[in-house]
């Protein structure tokens, strides 16, 4: 048991053999000084997908590439670009996939149209039913 524990300790403390990924992007973990700009940057960062850990936004992710993306967003916001311009720049490179913001395209429009069609159908059916029941 003790030997096992010692082995476990050794595994935990073992020096990593591989070189470490280094994050030097200036604004990966630093907020912008202007709170309004930081808020705009943050609103965009929660709507952008981390390219490595694909279920997370870059605001949530600790992956180094997400840090680079946060820095990109903050640097460009600080330079006066609008969030839409930055999102377009990224989508030009990575496609729709990088953005969590839903877009209506020739492929996605049924997703937006279907609920409306269903509601219209329900209203129509209910009206017919109520009209029938109110009749003597």
């Amino acid at each position, binding site marked *: 048991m003790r030997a096992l524990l010692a082995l476990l300790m050794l595994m935990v403390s073992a020096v990593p053999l*591989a*070189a*470490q*990924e*280094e*994050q*030097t*992007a*200036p604004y990966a973990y630093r907020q912008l000084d202007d709170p309004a700009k930081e808020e705009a940057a943050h609103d965009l960062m929660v709507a952008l997908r981390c*390219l*490595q850990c*694909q279920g997370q936004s870059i605001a949530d992710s600790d992956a*180094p*590439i997400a*840090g*680079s*993306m946060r*820095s*990109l967003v903050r640097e460009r916001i600080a330079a006066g670009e609008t969030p839409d311009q930055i999102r377009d720049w*990224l989508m*030009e*490179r*990575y*496609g729709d*996939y*990088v953005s969590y913001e839903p877009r209506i395209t020739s492929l996605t429009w049924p997703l937006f149209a279907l609920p409306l069609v269903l509601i219209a159908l329900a209203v129509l059916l209910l009206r017919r039913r109520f009209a*029938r*029941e109110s009749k003597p």
Partner: protein
Amino acid sequence: MTGEPESAANKPSRWMIWLPLALFLGFIALVMIGLYRPAPRDVASTLIGKPMPEFDLPPGLPGRPGLASADLKGGEPHLVNVFASWCLPCRVEAPQLERLAAMGVPVEGISVRDRTEDLKQFLARYGDPFQRIGADDDGQVQLALGSSGVPETYVIDGKGVIRYQHIGEIRAEQIPMILEKLEEARR
């Protein structure tokens, strides 16, 4: 319900009763197909066929030139390898890049979020096929290229247009394919 007997005309017909179940089963089938089909995990760059974004990276190693987009417009196709010393698949890929370099293919490197010391060790251990190495320390050129990880290899034609993006390591059996892409870029 009012308890009024429904007239025969208002009764749903026999097949209509099964319609919701059929729709539900159809939905289940769709979900199962989606669950069992492996989802693509790679995020491909949408810059294929477009010119390389403008960049000018400082040297990653002392004594080796850095990499600028202007270096890739010399009339000859290049391989641009996005790599890093901390990236394990890059070690798997290193012999293939060396073989390509030995065949006379110009191989340029962009090292991402790396340190000079680590880079030196990596190249000493796993081979150094690079003519130039640009140090992309803050990862901004990687993002400009539409690269979502390391290693990735781009085939750039003589005019600096991105012709092909290879995601992941180049394996030994993929060398002929890479050579073919370079040949296509020459045309």
